[in-house]
């Protein structure tokens, strides 16, 4: 929202010694954020009003016209590129020797072989937002030759952040901003200049009947019939102010309604008065069609609020008028609407139609119903002063079926001070609130604060709202920082949070992984690339882009994408990501925190070694994070997930629970991504952290150091090559002997020295006796016992 300081100064005397930047900073600290301050420095000198006597376009040029102007002292010929000029228009003229900063000093010249005296100035050279070369029209009250006050063109414009005033409908107009400035500088706010209400209530004039069907949707509707505003330009000062805050001047009527909207926040709409003799406000059913004045036929949603006249739709309430009843050049009388609508009704409809207008944006902010009549009073006041032809053609119609409830808040000054953590007196509270037009009365120890209607539509409801008013004027930066005194309380820790931190820390700091982040939605193009069908995923209704609608069920596709990206720059890397995935469980998708790893190296023969390393890493990780061992169970590969190797996939199991999967990226997929990846080994693991959260700590005891030496004996067990380690382990774990302390795995060997179809698994046994040193006979007996156990299980020991 752009604010003109010229405009503000009409209502409040701002300190002359403060720069615009300093004013903006004070406003930022007390009221709302200023995003920028811009000087409008036109540097006008010698500009006058000129009337166009004749104008004709020059053949053979695209947009040049030759005009004869009445400049008061006589007539001059000038060339102009301004569009839409006609005889009788009054424009801003720079005679030779006049100047503006944007164009320099204007001199007589020759254009298209014709002499051109001076220049008709375009709006954009005067700091007014207009289309290129478009001229500003002056009203007939300014005589040709009149010198235009150079200082009226200069201004300061302050941009207030819209988000920071979303909750303050009163700040969507200059008068509301001026009220804050008056309070900031403790200086009076001038009364809002309006036509006395009695002047609008002439019984001799007719009144338009208003019928409101839905008082919740339209709490108030005011209207009045008038003549003589439309057919002439608005006063120059009004056009300049509008132009400074970014609104293009259009004509006397539109400019005046826009002006009041920017001053008071109240949108108004003018109907062709000849076509309307009564007003009804009500909702329509879905599918109703209506053509708005931008000549678009719109299909309305159910519950859309319409203005009708004799049941004929004439406006989409609070959003836009209808094409049929638009003001035209032949319009004699017009009906001015100034209404109050429920914000949700307008917001829903504008949202449905994807058609938000300046008006609807304001209605969405909960406007003060008192402003409907006030805006009309202001309109009449300005029109009477500035438009010679203006005349009322009716008296004020005002339907107000649902008056705004008055809001009164009780505050306790002691609590206000305690809440702020800063002393403040009753007197200071009263002073601040009174400056903001709150009405304060004592009520015993408390104070009763009556909220003015322009703050009572949603903004101020409770004591905390009043405290904000007091505190921001006391000055947030005057409050001394003060540490709170706390009550000690041991809160129950969040197991999910704990496991996430530990899981990531061990992967990164313990195991040398590098953390990456990906989006939580799949890139469908990449899914296609890797041959993965993501159609079972939970989807976004409004994805960031096509192909980004599916929430990931696994972290692997994204990690593979990252791996493929990094292989251009690194020969070896280990990536880890911790994040949410949304796998399907039954009928719904649920959020699960996962941790996933991809370990890659530019070597095609390293895959099994890499997989062993990763399994070892996962085992170490599990000891560190959940103090438990991991086992790897054979998994039937899931064909829907192309990153799972058909032979090398295992289930990661902790405490008997399946918590994840580990595998190598098969050559088929690596080749599919890029044939260069055939020369790489890539292994991965993905673990669900939700199933590990909250496991209790398993304490490993530290038994006494053995008093007598213990001995290691290795055994190589010869097994069928296709038998799984996990099976053999089960057999070995069943072996019991009084001397046995521990069995551990050494390695798995396949080679020419073994019989075909066999491999050797080597296990190391540690044996010892708590009462004596072992002797050879003990070892021999143990060896025999172990051998019998192995043979009984249908295996044999490898000898030699």
């Amino acid at each position, binding site marked *: 929202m752009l604010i003109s300081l010229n405009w503000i100064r009409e209502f409040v005397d701002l300190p002359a010694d403060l720069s615009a930047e300093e004013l903006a900073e004070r406003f930022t600290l*007390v009221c709302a954020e200023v995003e920028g301050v811009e000087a409008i420095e036109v540097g006008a000198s010698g500009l006058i009003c000129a009337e166009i006597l004749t104008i004709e376009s020059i053949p053979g040029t695209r947009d040049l016209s030759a005009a004869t102007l009445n400049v008061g002292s006589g007539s001059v010929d000038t060339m102009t590129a301004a569009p839409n000029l006609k005889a009788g228009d009054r424009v801003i003229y720079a005679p030779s020797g006049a100047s503006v900063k944007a164009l320099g000093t204007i001199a007589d010249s020759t254009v298209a072989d014709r002499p051109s005296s001076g220049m008709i100035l375009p709006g954009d050279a005067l700091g007014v937002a207009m289309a290129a070369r478009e001229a500003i029209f002056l009203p007939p009250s300014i005589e040709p030759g009149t010198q235009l006050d150079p200082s009226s063109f200069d201004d300061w414009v302050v941009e207030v952040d819209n988000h920071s005033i979303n909750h303050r409908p009163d700040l969507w107009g200059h008068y509301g901003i001026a009220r804050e400035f008056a309070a900031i500088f403790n200086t009076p706010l001038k009364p809002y200049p309006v036509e006395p209400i009695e002047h609008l209530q002439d019984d001799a004039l007719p009144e338009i009947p208003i019928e409101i069907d839905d008082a919740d949707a339209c709490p108030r509707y005011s209207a009045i019939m008038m003549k003589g505003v439309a057919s002439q330009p608005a006063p120059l000062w009004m056009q300049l102010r509008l132009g400074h805050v970014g609104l293009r001047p259009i004509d006397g009527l539109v400019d005046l309604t826009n002006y009041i909207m920017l001053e008071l926040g109240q949108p108004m709409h003018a109907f062709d008065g000849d076509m309307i003799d009564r007003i009804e406000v009500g909702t329509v059913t879905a599918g109703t069609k209506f053509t708005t004045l931008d000549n678009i036929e719109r299909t309305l949603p159910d519950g859309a609020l319409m203005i009708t006249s004799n049941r004929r739709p004439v406006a989409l309430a609070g959003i836009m008028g209808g094409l049929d009843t638009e003001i035209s050049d032949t319009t004699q009388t017009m009906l001015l609407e100034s209404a109050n609508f429920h914000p949700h009704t307008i917001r829903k409809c504008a949202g449905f139609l994807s058609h938000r207008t300046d008006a609807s944006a304001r209605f969405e902010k909960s406007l003060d119903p008192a402003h409907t009549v006030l805006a009309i009073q202001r309109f009449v006041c300005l029109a009477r002063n500035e438009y010679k032809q203006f005349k009322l053609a009716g008296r004020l119609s005002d339907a107000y079926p649902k008056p705004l409830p008055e809001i009164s808040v009780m505050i306790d000054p002691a609590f206000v001070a305690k809440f702020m953590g800063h002393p403040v007196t009753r007197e200071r509270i009263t002073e601040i609130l009174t400056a903001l037009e709150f009405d304060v009365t004592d009520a015993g120890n408390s104070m009763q604060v009556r909220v003015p209607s322009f703050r009572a539509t949603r903004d101020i409801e409770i004591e905390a709202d009043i405290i904000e008013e007091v505190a921001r004027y006391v000055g947030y930066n005057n409050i001394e*920082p003060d540490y709170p005194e706390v009550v000690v309380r041991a809160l129950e820790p969040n197991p999910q949070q704990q496991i996430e931190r530990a899981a990531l820390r061990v992967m990164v700091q313990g195991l040398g992984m590098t953390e990456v982040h990906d989006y939580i939605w799949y890139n469908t193009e990449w899914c296609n690339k890797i041959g993965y069908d993501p159609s079972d995923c939970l989807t976004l209704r409004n994805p960031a882009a096509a192909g980004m609608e599916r929430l990931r069920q696994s972290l692997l596709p994204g990690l593979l994408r990252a791996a493929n990206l990094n292989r251009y720059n690194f020969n070896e890397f280990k990536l880890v990501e911790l994040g949410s995935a949304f796998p399907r469980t039954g009928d719904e998708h649920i959020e699960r925190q996962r941790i996933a790893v991809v370990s890659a190296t530019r070597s095609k023969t390293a895959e099994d070694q890499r997989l062993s390393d990763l399994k070892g890493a996962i085992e170490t990780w599990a000891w560190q994070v959940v103090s438990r061992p991991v086992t790897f169970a054979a998994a039937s590969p899931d064909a829907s997930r192309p990153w799972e190797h058909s032979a090398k996939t295992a289930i990661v199991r902790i405490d008997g629970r399946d918590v994840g999967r580990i595998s190598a990226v098969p050559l088929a997929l690596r080749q599919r991504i890029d044939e260069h990846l055939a020369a790489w080994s890539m292994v991965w693991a993905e673990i669900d952290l939700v199933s590990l959260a909250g496991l209790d700590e398993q304490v490993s005891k530290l038994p006494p150091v053995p008093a007598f030496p213990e001995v290691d004996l290795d055994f190589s067990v010869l097994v069928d090559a296709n038998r799984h380690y996990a099976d053999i382990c089960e057999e070995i774990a069943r072996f019991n002997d009084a001397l046995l302390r521990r069995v551990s795995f050494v390695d798995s060997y396949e080679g020419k020295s073994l019989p075909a179809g066999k491999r050797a698994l080597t296990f190391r046994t540690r044996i010892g006796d708590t009462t004596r040193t072992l002797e050879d006979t003990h070892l021999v007996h143990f060896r025999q016992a172990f051998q019998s156990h192995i043979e009984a299980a249908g295996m044999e020991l490898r000898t030699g």
Partner: protein
Amino acid sequence: MDLDKLQNQLSTLRAETTTAIAGVVTMDELRRLESQTTGKTGALGAWMATIKEFPPEQRGQVGKTLNQAKGELTKLFKDAGEKIKAGAAAAEASKASSYDPTLPGIRPPVGSFHPVTLVQLQVEAVFQRLGFLIETGPEMESEHYNFEALNIPKLHPARDMQDTFWLTNGKLLRTHTSPVQVRAMERHGTPLRVIAPGRCFRYETIDASHENTFHQVEGLMIDRNISIANLIAMMKLLLREVFSQELSIRLRPGYFPFVEPGFEMDMSCLICGGGGCATCKQSGWIEILPCGMVHPNVLRAGNIDPHEFTGFAFGLGLTRLAMMKYGVADIRGLNSGDLRALVPAGRISGTTVAEKPPC
């Protein structure tokens, strides 16, 4: 055997041994030779065994002679050993003089946290020191926790400020970490001190400084007498710890429906020190910390009586903090998975000799 003959033979042994030692280079050879000469089974050992063959009156003299010879031989070996060791030590020292003691080491592969995680861990550590619990909440959130419980009813204009990703199951991707406020109130009651870091999502166009996926940390403190003065003190402390320096701050009004009053906290610009530069848009201030006093409606949503308890809440952009701290110019690198955007080159592997950043 007589004494003279023995003495002759011992002289011969001494002479032969001296010659043999002269040809020895290593300690191993020397020890072998010593064992062959003076050991149990060596030449001297064999004569020691013959001592009984001498007449009893000569035995004392023989023993004395043999022991003397053994002492002499042992000394020969000891001296030779010292000489070999000294030679080896000198040779080693001489050889090592070609070693370059300034060569760098060979680094074991190390991991690295994501820059956002690094600042997150730092912020968590600050608050853990202050007795705050770390909480989490789901990224797939309900409208209730993301909006309604935070005093943002349907059709509230504030929903415009948080363009939302909606899911087909009726839920949404949380637009901020604030839903954890009410979840934490429900979980723990009062008094309460928590922070909740996490990933958030806003439907917006991505460019070098805007992301639709980013991290925040939420903070919440509720007790019987929490005041604005408390909030200011704690926020000031937070910024000092995070930026490891004393900073000027200022507080100004800000609007967030779930706090009342709401504030924006600015800190003095770290680039220009407050004088004004491009980073701070010439204002000298950087908007860093939206915060405020918890709205009574939010306390009620968390089953807390606003007449009994007050509190403050804040939100800190971790992604933005990481960008400031590590000088990340393009936010898109953070979710790219490209290690070059995430880890300083010298952190991954190898030893840096010189950095020549492009200018």
